[in-house]
């Protein structure tokens, strides 16, 4: 039934605007508020903190529906849910939960996740942003880059080095409100796809965050960042599955209608095989995603499985959207049809929250049993 709600919301509210949002890059503020009103911005946040109290399997099912309509809109929603609400639920103090989760769930606030820096992407644990305790406040200095929701967000999860230890050890996580002194939005990126979600630089210039806004313990930031990404990768897997499904659905419909050489193109075996392969890869991706989400629901480790789901789903999305453009021929290349959007949107799923190469690093570590 959650799927029904997500699908109805996606087809009624998101889909009719997906092309426009892609062409203009507008942030769909009202749409996000509607999502929040239905309980879709704090889906897995416990009810006592204003969330919907949903389980991780229902979560990915719903995310797939949003992404099927618009990967850009889904990116905005999944970041707020997975990358911002999740770590506060998992690592926040009681007062942090009570202070931040209701607003993030109700649409009053929007969250963003600030890990990447200009010189630390895949090697996130080498980050340089610094945090220093000064009386009753942490003072943060540094520049975060490629922050999804960076422009509109009011609550930022910021990772910074609070001790001289190199690597993950010295990193701490902080809840930083945009209204704190010393934080501002820098360059706003122009990009290939997911255009209606903003991607921005966040500059911390002696930004002061109250002492109690440390998330978890000092030095726990690396762990928080990675645990959060496990969940986040499920959101990206769902995004990829949604895009791939859109590519398949549009292609199947087109193949039934489009006639060449006196028959529908769906009667050519070349097209049939492409559709069959798309359908099979999408199902495989979805099942990997369900498995990882199911493990998470049971409270079991799911790092490897989340990486597998994200890796496979994102490559399936890239492949399927590429096929969709091809099946549509010239129509696949022009903006009146959606496949070129799927093609552009799909690419990001192979990059953020760990590139495909990094997913392979994570998976192979588990395979080899190395730490």
């Amino acid at each position, binding site marked *: *039934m959650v799927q*029904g709600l997500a699908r*109805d919301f996606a087809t009624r509210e998101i889909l009719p605007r997906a092309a426009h949002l892609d062409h203009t890059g507008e942030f769909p503020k009202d749409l996000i508020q509607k999502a929040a*009103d*239905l309980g*879709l911005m704090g*889906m897995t946040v416990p*009810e006592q903190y204003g969330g919907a*109290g*949903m389980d991780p399997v229902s979560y990915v099912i719903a995310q797939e529906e949003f992404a099927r309509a618009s990967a850009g809109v889904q990116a905005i929603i999944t970041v707020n849910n997975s990358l911002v609400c999740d770590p506060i639920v998992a690592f926040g103090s009681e007062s942090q939960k009570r202070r931040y989760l209701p607003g993030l769930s109700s649409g009053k606030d929007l969250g963003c996740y600030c890990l990447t820096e200009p010189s630390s992407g895949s090697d996130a644990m080498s980050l340089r942003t610094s945090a220093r305790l000064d009386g009753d406040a942490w003072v943060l200095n540094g520049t975060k880059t490629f922050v999804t929701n960076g422009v509109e967000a009011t609550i930022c999860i910021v990772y910074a080095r609070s001790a001289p230890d190199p690597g993950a050890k010295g990193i701490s996580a902080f809840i930083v409100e945009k209204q704190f002194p010393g934080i501002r939005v820098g360059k706003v990126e122009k990009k290939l796809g997911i255009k209606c979600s903003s991607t921005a630089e966040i500059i911390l210039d002696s930004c002061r965050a109250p002492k109690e806004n440390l998330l978890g313990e000092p030095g726990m930031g690396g762990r928080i960042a990675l645990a959060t990404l496990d969940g986040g990768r499920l959101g990206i897997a769902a995004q990829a599955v949604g895009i791939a499904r859109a590519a398949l659905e549009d292609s199947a419909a087109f193949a039934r209608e489009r006639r060449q050489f006196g028959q529908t193109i769906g009667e050519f075996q070349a097209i049939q095989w492409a559709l069959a392969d798309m359908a099979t890869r999408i199902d495989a991706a979805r099942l990997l995603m369900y498995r990882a989400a199911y493990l998470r629901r049971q409270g079991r480790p799911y790092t490897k499985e989340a990486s597998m789901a994200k890796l496979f789903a994102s490559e399936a999305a890239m492949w399927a959207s590429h096929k969709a453009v091809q099946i549509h021929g010239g129509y696949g290349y022009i903006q009146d049809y959606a496949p070129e959007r799927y093609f552009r949107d799909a690419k990001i799923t192979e990059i953020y929250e760990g590139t495909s190469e990094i997913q392979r690093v994570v998976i192979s570590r588990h395979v080899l049993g190395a730490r």
Partner: protein
Amino acid sequence: MDTIVCLKQVVDPELPQWDFAIDPATKRQVRMGKPLVISTYDENALELALQLKEKTGGKVTALTLGPQGEVKDAVRLALAMGADEAVVIDDPQSPQRLAADKASVLAAAIKRIGRFDLVLTGCESADWVERAMAPFLAEALGAACVTFISRAESRDGALSVRRTSEEGFQTVDVRLPAVLSVTSDEAIRPRLPKVKDIMAAMRKPVANWTRADLGAEDAGGAKGVEVKDVSIPERTTKVEFLEGEPAEQAEALVARLRALKIL
């Protein structure tokens, strides 16, 4: 205003045409493996019931007849949207039955539920389009009946409804209890339930009755009506090219359109 809304689950009418198939044995649409939804106008009826409840208070009960395993979602959705209570009458054969029979079972269930001011149905089901349920129910319950209503307003205990007809609309004052069949209106847009209402709906009790519980085991209401055959209408398109200069083509076109009685 206590309202009972009858909800039928049908194969999603939004499915593409090529997904539509008829089972030659039952002479009914194939349901197996297809997504089921609350029939379009029934969902409108539910929305109208909820709007009336918000204005005048009272209770909304969702009532559905069908194979129990299949119809659970319909009543859960109704509860999530705001219905107070839900009743499922289990009848694995119901997709094969016609309106008269089903009406007798639903009427028995409505009598068992007891007090009601209104019974709402959709004006037609999205699959079978018999348009018969509301009149049958009204007859069985001895209630007033107005079909194809698009609006309803309660005024000191009485109800004024707008009935849509081919010529326009009629405003009808109805005595209660009444059975109304609901069509569409811009003001009736079925609401999306909130996630937390969906979760809460999972915990609300649903009454499960059988036909036997209602003494309707062999209602035989469909006697005298038998479906002999059903078929999917075939639509063919033919393209004709008219030869010649533009003036000749125009003349030929007019002649053809006259011959086809289009002009």
